[in-house]
């Protein structure tokens, strides 16, 4: 079993493509959060604020469909929340890509492991009620 790590497909073209996609997604997520933050501060920067009391966010900032809709209408908080959604998607996509890597290697045991992790992640995100 020596050299297991070395036979993995780390330097193949497909691995480079996956790494590039994840990098772009991370940068885009960060930029979307930044743009939303700038919008928020330009429009409501001088509004008094306090986060001492927990109220729970409204549906417009909890449900994926409403966050996306709100973001495209340019609501500042929805834009930030959309960026946060993209950020949450990054590690999920990473697990998917690792699973695809094992599929190419025909390592069925680890295709199964990746599938289990994706199901667990999916069940958490299902709570988002798409």
């Amino acid at each position, binding site marked *: 079993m020596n050299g297991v790590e070395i036979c993995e497909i780390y330097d193949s073209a497909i691995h480079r493509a996956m790494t590039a996609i994840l990098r772009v997604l991370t940068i885009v997520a960060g930029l979307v959060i930044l743009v939303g933050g700038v919008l928020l501060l330009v429009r409501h920067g001088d509004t008094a604020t306090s986060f001492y009391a927990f109220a729970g966010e409204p549906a417009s900032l909890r449900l994926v469909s409403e966050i996306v809709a709100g973001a495209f209408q340019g609501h500042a908080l929805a834009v930030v*929340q959309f960026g946060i959604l993209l950020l949450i998607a990054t590690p999920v996509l990473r697990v998917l890509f690792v699973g695809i890597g094992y599929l190419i290697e025909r390592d069925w045991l680890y295709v199964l492991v990746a599938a289990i992790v994706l199901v667990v992640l999916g069940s958490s995100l299902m709570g988002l009620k798409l």
Partner: protein
Amino acid sequence: MTQLEFAALASAGSLFAGFLGSLTGLGGGVVIVPMLVLGFHVDVHYAVGASLISVIGTSAGAQAAHGREGFSNTRIGLFLEIATTMGAICGAFLSTSMPTKWIAIIFGLVLLYSAWSSMQTKKQADASRPPDALATKLRLVGNFPDRQKLVSYSARRVPLGFSLMFGAGTLSGLLGIGSGAVKVLAMDQAMQIPFKVSTATSNFMIGVTAAASAGVYLSRGYINPAVAMPVTIGVLVGSLLGARFLVNARVKSVRVIFAIVIALLAAEMIFNGLTGKL
């Protein structure tokens, strides 16, 4: 406090936290919640939600900047992610039903452990023992270069490590931290995977674990974008700066100072939790 003042102060504080966290290897997440709760009087649930997003951001940012972690073992990481993600969802649901003061007290205790463990000198696991049967079956093996030769290793005590990882996931979901210290404990101490491999694999796992609980937090309305925005941006920029400095900084003294700061924050979290001030 106005939105602008909050955003400016919180992002500056988070930048500093991310910088120190990445310099010391403790992660910025551990000081974000105390900073928000004690310094800005943010509700614990909002603080934990914001910290969780910043943990995902830091992990994704580090991977975007450096590509693959040098010594990480993808199979070991992926296999243990079954435990951490399930634990994370568990922790997220616990957090929605647990009184604030208990979260503060548990947070304080975990902070104390992190501070203590960061001061310990790590001894290399003995890689020469025969491999474990279950670990061989699951192929939780690998090798890494150490002083110009390739050292092979094999995981041991897989069930114990798996259970500890479930615990690490629960803490991550409950407290919004990466819980890297517990992950390294599970891999390095319980499973006897070489320290360099343990830390690199733990970094690879942190984002996936945090994403599992983030879904629950978001759908329950615990992610407040106005809180999460400055924190995430601050920690991300700070940790990328910290990674640049890492090469030529004298880390030892920074580590001691950071551990003392963490221990003081831990004491204050526990005190405020016990006296019901939160």
